[in-house]
Structure formats: C-alpha cells, structure tokens
C-alpha cells in the first residue's frame, strides 16, 4: 500500500483549512487549556502583561492586514486606537453603555475614520503613504488634546469597569478571560478573511497592484476595505485598552506608539497573522524580560551590583530589534516556520 509522505489536499476546503492534521488540532487544544489555567500558575503581574499583550495582538493583527497583506504602510495606527478608545470612553463613561456596545462602536467609528483616511490616500505609495498616515496621527493627537469639551483634553478620560451580566470585572484575572475571548474572536475573523477571496485580493494589491487591477481586482474597493478593516481592529483594541487602563489620555497614542505597532508586525513577520501575535508579545514582553534578566544577572554577578542602569534595558531592546532583523528579516514568524519545518522533516534536513 503506498504510504503518503506528505499531506495532500483534494479539495478547496482542505487546502485552506486552518488546522489540517490531527496533531495541529491536539496542539491547539493543549494551547487553549494552557491559556485557561495561566492565571492559576503565574502571578498577577504576568497576567497584567498578558492583558496588555492581548490588546497589542488585536492592534497588530489589524495593522498587519493593512501593511503586511495589502502593502499600505501606515504610521498612524495609534490614532485609530485613540479614536476607538475615546469613542468607547464617551459611550461607556458618558452614556453608561455596556461593553458589547462600546467596543464594536469604537471599532466602527475607527473604521469610518479609516475610510476617511484611505480614500484620499489611494494615490500614495510607500514612504509617502507612511508620512501621510503619520500626519493624520499627529492631527488626531492634536484634536484630542485641544477639544477639551469632548475629550477632557489634558485631563484625559476615565473609563468604568467592564460589566458582564451584572458581574463587575475588577481584577486582572477576570479581565484576562474577557480579553482572551475578544482576542480569540478577532484572530479567528482575521484568519478567515485572509484565507478567502478578500485576503487573496489584498495580497494581490500588495504584490502587483497594476496587474491585479487588470485582472479584475477592484483596487479602490480593496484598499479602502483594508484601511477600514485595520482601523476596526485598532478601534476595538483601543476600547480594550481603555477598559484595562481605566483612564486614557492623548499621550498614550503618540507617534512612538504607531512606530511600536509597526515594529510588532515587522519583527513578528509581515503578512502573517501568527507573526503579528509573536511580534506583539515580543514588543510588550521583551522590555520586562530584559529587565528581569538584567536584575537576575545583577544578583548573580557581584561585579554588577549597584551598577544596573535602567537605560541598558532600552539599549538592549533596540539592539535586539536590530539583531533580529539583520539575522532574520522575515521576523519571528520565519524563525517559527523554520523550526516547524525542521521538526516535520527530522531527521532529514529538507
């Protein structure tokens, strides 16, 4: 009987399946179980960090849809997060609406803003588009800090706690599960968009846009859709951020934040959802990890006692970014794929 040496696909559905083998299904179940019991095996601070990572994951998935898959570089992502956050705050704190209205509303308002930015920017390419989106970001920041009547200006806005069916989620652990659900939902939706026709259209726009248009891919429609979709994700992420922090201020959404989100997808891997997740976790967790490492080293090596300087963290962080990209320009995702392929093909090398 012939033995199958690789997995073959015999239908369209098989080809785009997310979990194709029994092994990947098992790993996924184990992973989910691990996530569910995380708060019981680690301390509150790590849970808080994971909460922040969830927000970053949603934001970076959104940015990857726009930049990684559709090739439109955006340096204004933080502005869309801000719009989503402030919308959620206005509805949640001002009008007392529950989370299942404020979060989608934040996403929708952000998406509308995304369309407003996307349409004028249709002609721009590459770094010019990046600068245009950056200008938009700066303008949004200005409006947020100046329009005191709406946004509280320099004071910022407070945000109430999430209220699920009467239970107030006031601990990091309960917020963790809440955020986990939303993040999982957003990731699944993104994965589904990417593996179908819309996703392929995005990739066509990125790779050969003129040829794509010739073949019938509506450039305008898909570019604007990409902007809207990515802004929706950013808006939801912004709303989540508002709930986690309890207080938002324009200085949480600066150009530096936009650059951070960009760093997340480039380091994670452009054009891959898994890459966005890796990148987001890396950027959120790496500074803390470096700090822990440095403090651990300090206590082990007596020569370094008392000489530890916070600045070294940041220097090492910058260095890590550089080294990652120099040695693996495909990002964390490329490294992950290589590891996976290595395992799959072991003991053969290819």
């Amino acid at each position, binding site marked *: 009987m012939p033995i199958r040496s690789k997995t073959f696909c015999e239908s369209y559905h098989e080809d785009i399946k997310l979990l194709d083998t029994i092994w990947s299904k098992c790993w996924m179940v184990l992973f989910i179980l691990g996530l569910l019991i995380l708060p019981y095996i680690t301390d509150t601070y790590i849970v808080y960090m994971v909460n922040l990572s969830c927000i970053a994951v949603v934001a970076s998935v959104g940015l990857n849809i726009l930049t990684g898959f559709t090739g439109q570089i955006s340096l204004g992502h933080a502005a869309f997060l801000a719009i989503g956050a402030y919308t959620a705050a206005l509805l949640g704190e001002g009008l007392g609406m529950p989370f299942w209205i404020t979060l989608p509303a934040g996403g929708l308002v952000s998406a509308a803003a995304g369309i407003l930015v996307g349409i004028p920017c249709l002609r721009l390419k590459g770094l010019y588009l990046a600068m245009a989106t950056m200008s938009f970001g700066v303008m949004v920041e200005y409006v947020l800090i100046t329009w005191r009547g709406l946004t509280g200006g320099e004071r910022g806005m407070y945000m109430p706690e999430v209220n699920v069916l009467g239970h107030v989620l006031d601990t990091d652990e309960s917020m963790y599960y809440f955020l986990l659900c939303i993040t999982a939902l957003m990731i699944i939706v993104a994965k589904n968009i990417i593996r179908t026709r819309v996703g392929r259209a995005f990739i066509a726009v990125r790779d050969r846009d003129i040829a794509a248009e010739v073949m019938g891919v509506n450039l305008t429609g898909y570019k604007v859709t990409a902007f809207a979709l990515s802004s929706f994700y950013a808006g939801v992420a912004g709303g989540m951020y508002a709930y986690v922090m309890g207080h938002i201020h324009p200085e949480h959404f600066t150009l530096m934040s936009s650059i951070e989100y960009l760093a997340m997808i480039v380091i994670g891997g452009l054009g891959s959802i898994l890459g966005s997740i890796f990148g987001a976790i890396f950027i959120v967790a790496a500074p803390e990890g470096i700090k822990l490492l440095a403090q651990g080293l300090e206590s082990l090596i007596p020569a370094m006692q008392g000489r530890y300087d916070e600045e070294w963290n940041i*220097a090492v*962080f910058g260095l890590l970014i*550089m080294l990652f990209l120099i040695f693996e320009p495909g990002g964390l995702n490329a490294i992950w794929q290589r590891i996976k392929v290595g395992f799959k093909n072991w003991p053969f090398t290819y």
Partner: protein
Amino acid sequence: MYFLELVISGIAVGSLYALIAMGFVLIYKGTGVINFAQGEAIMVAAFIAYYLVGFGVPFWLAVPLTLVASALLGALTERLVIRPMLGEPVFSVVMVTIGLSIFLRSMAGIVFGHHNYVFPSPFPVEPLHVGGIVLSHNHLWSMIISFLLMLLFFFFFKFARLGLGMRATANDQDTATLMGINIKKVYALTWGISFVVAGLAGVGLANVMVLNVGLAFVAISAFPAVILGGLESIPGAIIGGLAIGILENLAGGYLDQIVGGGVKDVTPFAVLFLVLMIRPYGLFGTKEVERV
C-alpha cells in the same frame, strides 16, 4: 513688520530643518531608505561638539572634529547595521534604523548623561539688527551653510561620478552592480556624508536649543520638510525645510492665539497631508515608474 519678523525667524529655523532634511534625502537618494536614526545622529554630534568645547578645544577646530567623528559614526553604522541588510525589503531596513535610533538614544543617555546642558555659543549674544529686523548670528550661519551645501550637493549629484553612482544605486541596485559601480563604497560614503550633514545640523541646533537627549526628536518635526520637497530632491529638502519653518512660525504667531494653542506644531503635518493629496510624490519628488 511682525509678519516679516516671523518670516525671518521662520527662515532661520527652517534652514536648520533644511539641514536635517538634507541628511534624510541623502540617505534616501543613495540607499533608498529613510533613516529613522538621523535624529540620534544629530544629537550625538551635538554632544560630541559640546564635550570637545568643554575640553577646551576652540570652536573653529571642534566643528571639523565633530564632523569627522560623525562621518566615522556614519560609516560604522553602515558597515555594521546596513550592509548586512543589502537586498532586503526596504521596510525591514527602515525598521532596523528604528531599532538603531532606540539603541543610540539610550546609549547617548548612558554615555553623555541625562541632564540639560547649555552649549557655549561662540557667536556674540547680541543679535544683528538689519533694518529693524532682529536676526541672531547662529541662525544667519545656519542659513549660509544650508545654501552652500545645497549648491555643493546639487553639482555633486549632477556631475560628479560618485554622485551619479549614488543615484544609480538608489534607483536599481542590481543594475548598478552590473554596471561596475562599487555598491559597498557608495553605501559607506552615502552614510558618511549624510552623518556629516547631520553633524552640522547638530552643532546648529545645539546653539539654539537646550542640549539634551530629547534633541533627537527634532528630526521628527523635520519629516514634513523631507516629504514636502520630495524624497529624492536636495533642493526640495531645502525648500521644504524653509517652507516648514516659515509655516510653523506664521501659524504660531497668528493662529496660536485664536485656535487655542499648539497649532504651531501640528500645522506642518496638516499642510503635508494636504500637499500629498494634491501631489502624491511631494513637490519635487520623482514619480515612481512601475512596470507590471
């Protein structure tokens, strides 16, 4: 009168922006990358100048030494950070420069300290009075230097062999290599020269501003100038820089009082956005020709 004063001081600040923008454009022209670490290059040069003068080196000697140090820093950066990225997508290289900027900023904090330093200006404090308009010496000098540099680079890129080589490399790396241009040398020289320009900008800025690690963020304000003039155009960088300087000051002088303050900083970006709507490649940039 007030208007004219604002315009003149706008030109003065604008010439500093022009210097910064030139640095960006040089690297883009030579290697096709936006160098996010330009601001940090400026800051490091300013600190080097500060320490040299602090050690007693006279100003007219400290500046060339600073420029030499900047050139070395540029070449070193290119060799260690950019050379390995030859052939990678532009985006990744830009991200590497972002990582570099974070690294340089914190290293500068460690090496030079976090305090606010005041650069001992060699120029007399009394400003010049030209027909009722006040102009400070170091602003005058930055203007002169910017214009000289513009002329220099204009001819360099148009006629000099190396300049043409740089333009060829930026346009199409593979073809340039095939034509016999030594890409490595071109890259190294591009970065060296750009960092020298950054050094000049650094010395100019140090005279005007309080010197601290935050000097690096001034480069972000110069982005509109870079894009306004178009990414490949040196005259565009100068004009963009001056335009942004004047615009900022006019907005600050007239609009700040009306619209509630802070308009000065957002105006360049708003104007940039509008210009990009009309001219997608900036005022003087070259349109990218795409082949299917």
